[in-house]
């Protein structure tokens, strides 16, 4: 019976994940210190190009982690986390280029603006269920791209050239700090009553509401939280790549990458998105740089292969949380 075999597989994968989490719990402090030290020394020991790849992978971690904060916990699948990258990218680029703001200020303001937009959009968005939420988030990102394309103040379809005035290491450390903050936030959410209630919304929203969980407020808080980090990362990214237009800064690829990385690693877990993002980003960047022309083909096929051959256990995690 196929059901038995997947059940067995799912159990064994669950066991592996559980033992992995146990190990992590047991050596929590030394592992955290080790990871932070590795992150800190990467630009010092690696040459410039590999450092850039690691920086972009950290950007992927932020994408995936932000998707995980809203979708992994509440079960509302967002296909629009890239919108917050775009908001951050444009805010950051404008602040640094037009107002000459310091990088830190640009990052913080971008995060704040992304959060505000999530707050405003979250009200109507989070009333939609299932497919509709996924599609509405996807569409809002497209609408934002179309809107910016028609605003000449923001460079229109031509885009903005943002000046890269800082050494690359600055951007690396900015990505690293945001990624660490995001993982730490996910960890604390996972441990907290807030996180438990979000999971309750995930497993049965009506029941959670009946039991007195203010579901609308919690969903909105999770959504706003999920917008802050990509907002901040967007500001860094815009100046890191030096040139943004609506097609790159609000590329639907960004949102889909977030979903893909998270599904690969494990939806609703603390480290799943990190593992998924690091492995797939590194793979895509290494393969992509080998066959430059085939970059998009590889990305597309990677999506197909990962979704098709993903271990059942990780699919099982999604099923269990639905």
């Amino acid at each position, binding site marked *: 019976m196929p059901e038995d075999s997947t059940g067995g597989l799912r159990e064994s994968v669950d066991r592996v994940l559980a033992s992995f989490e146990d190990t992590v719990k047991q050596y929590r402090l030394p592992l955290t210190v080790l990871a932070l030290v590795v992150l800190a020394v990467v630009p010092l020991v690696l040459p410039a190009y590999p450092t850039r790849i690691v920086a972009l992978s950290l950007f992927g971690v932020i994408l995936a982690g932000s998707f995980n904060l809203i979708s992994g916990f509440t079960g509302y699948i967002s296909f629009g986390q890239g919108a917050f990258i775009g908001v951050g990218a444009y805010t950051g680029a404008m602040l640094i280029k037009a107002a000459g703001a310091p990088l830190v200020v640009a990052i913080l303001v971008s995060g704040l603006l992304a959060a505000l937009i999530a707050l405003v959009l979250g009200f*109507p968005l989070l009333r*939609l269920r299932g497919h509709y939420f996924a*599609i*509405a988030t996807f569409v809002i990102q497209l609408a934002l791209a179309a809107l910016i394309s*028609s605003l000449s103040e923001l460079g229109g379809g031509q885009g903005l050239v943002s000046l890269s005035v800082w050494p690359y290491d600055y951007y690396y450390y900015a990505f690293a700090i945001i990624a660490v903050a995001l993982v730490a936030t996910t960890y604390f959410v996972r441990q907290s009553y807030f996180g438990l209630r979000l999971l309750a919304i995930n497993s049965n929203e009506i029941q959670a509401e009946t039991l007195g969980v203010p579901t609308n407020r919690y969903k909105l808080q999770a959504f706003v939280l999920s917008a802050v980090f990509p907002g901040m990362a967007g500001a860094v990214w815009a100046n890191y790549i030096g040139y943004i237009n609506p097609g790159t800064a609000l590329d639907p690829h960004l949102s*889909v990458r977030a979903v893909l990385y998270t599904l690969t690693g494990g939806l609703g877990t603390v480290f799943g998105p990190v593992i998924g993002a690091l492995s797939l980003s590194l793979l895509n960047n290494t393969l992509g740089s080998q066959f430059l022309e*085939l970059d*998009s083909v590889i990305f597309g*096929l990677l*999506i197909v292969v990962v979704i098709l051959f993903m271990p059942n256990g990780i699919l099982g995690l999604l099923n269990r949380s639905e």
Partner: protein
Amino acid sequence: MAVLDPLVYGILLGGLFTLISVGFSLSWGVLDIIDLSHGIQIILGSYISFWLYTLYGINYWLTIPVAFALIFAGSYVYQRTLLQRFVDREQFIYIFVITFGVSVACEALMDIFWTSNYRSVTMDYPTFVVGGVTIPSLRIIAFVVSIVLTGLLAYMLKYTRMGYAIRAIRDNQKSARLMGVNTDRTYALTMGLKGGLAAVGGSLLLTLQPISPISHFRWMVFAFIVVVIGGLGSVTGALAGGLLLGVVISAVGTYASQGIADVVAYTLLTVFLFVRPTGLFGLQEGQSNA
């Protein structure tokens, strides 16, 4: 009359919007499959017609049935081999992601093999002047073909065994299967029809404007908008949504700009999602279409 121009052009364009969306509406509304590679099927239709017409000099109108047949078969196999497994496991979010992956890979492959140049066909057809409005006959042909095919689909849904099977699945998949409907085959045939109609839409589209591999995304989004405005799984809805979108795009495009027209279209879509997610003619929860 400057006022009539965008209206007439909009309605004619709306027919084409209806054709590319009506299958999308069925697959989403009936099968719960949101195929993000829908635009690829449209553009492949354009390319099939383009190559047959330019390379082999085949009469353009004869290339359209070829495009239909090829993409119908392709979509049938696509559903059977790639997508059906996710339907069986009820993992519809995966279909969203995997079809996006397919569309990314296909767009990139088309770029590599066929370049990203915009392609167009030039055919010498007369234009009519009716009541002060100048109408190229190609637009009328595209409109008529679209409406006829949409009508045929509506007839098929209402009066044929295949149509009964599709509607039975919409009402209740499990009961349909218990009553002897071959659901896997019906899924694949519906997806085949969706792809085939999209390809015809693509072929007709190429007679009106140039296309390139990147165009697929915009046309898929148009299908999205039409379906959400009109309502899932409804042919009447696709018609209403298509015509409405056609007029909006054409009017705003004329008086403002194409960019603003896109923004207005997206805004319309967002408003519908928030205020009336079932669209104009969509079924409410638990409602049947007897």
